[in-house]
């Protein structure tokens, strides 16, 4: 059972918002006591996913949660948009796949940098990506 200890929700519209989200993630990661490498991994993953929300989802929300189960605590990040959605999620997770002008490392990279990764999306119904990094 995962318990949510606290939540912060932020708007994601512009490239400045991406910076604000990764700064907030850095603060939470430090508060949680994550080491420097783990902080950097979760901040980098948040930057990739936040950019996806802005560039492909047409903007949305980022939710930063400090969570806990019976053994440990962690940081869960949820990125939600009401954009066009993804029709082939497996393809979108492949490195090098991009529908835009990026490098296609965003989703797959964020997954590799996290302990847990979930995505739900359908054409016309937006996208929700959630990652979790345990302490």
């Amino acid at each position, binding site marked *: 059972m995962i318990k949510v200890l606290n939540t912060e929700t932020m708007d994601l519209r512009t490239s400045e918002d991406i910076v604000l989200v990764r700064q907030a993630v850095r603060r939470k990661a430090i508060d949680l006591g994550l080491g420097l490498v783990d902080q950097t*991994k979760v901040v*980098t993953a948040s930057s990739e996913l936040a950019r996806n929300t802005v560039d492909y989802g047409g903007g949305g929300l980022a939710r930063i949660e400090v969570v806990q189960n019976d053994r440990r605590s962690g940081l869960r990040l949820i990125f939600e948009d009401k954009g066009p959605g993804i029709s082939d999620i497996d393809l979108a997770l492949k490195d090098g796949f991009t529908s835009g002008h990026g490098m296609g490392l965003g989703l797959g990279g964020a997954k590799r940098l996290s302990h847990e990764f979930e995505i739900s999306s359908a054409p016309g119904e937006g996208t929700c990506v959630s990652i979790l990094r345990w302490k």
Partner: protein
Amino acid sequence: MERIPILKMGEFLLVTIQVDMHDRLALTLQDDLTQSIVKHHARGVLIDISALEMVDSFIGRMIGSIAGMARLLDAQTMVVGMQPSVAITLVELGLSLEGIRTALDVEKGMAALQLAVAETRQDLDDQGSQY
């Protein structure tokens, strides 16, 4: 408009990235640097990222583009000062910045850049003497 300063040091340009760059600022830097290379006839570009606590795929791509554009304009690029945690994360992300020269700090980077530029000059001289 917000801009990252570009310093001219002899035939090299030095850029120290000290802020958490948003995407548009990164693109502006890319444009400014290519213009400066031509304006100052620079032979090398040194990018100091020691203050950067994170390099994501966007910034990584920008560094790669700068190196590629600089090469087309006859200048070499050296990225210096990457933090170990950034290097670990970049590789896991899937970005190893292949083909980009790196050094541990500005001093070592400057020395390597001077050597590299001297070598290309030497090559040109050698070719010239054959004819």
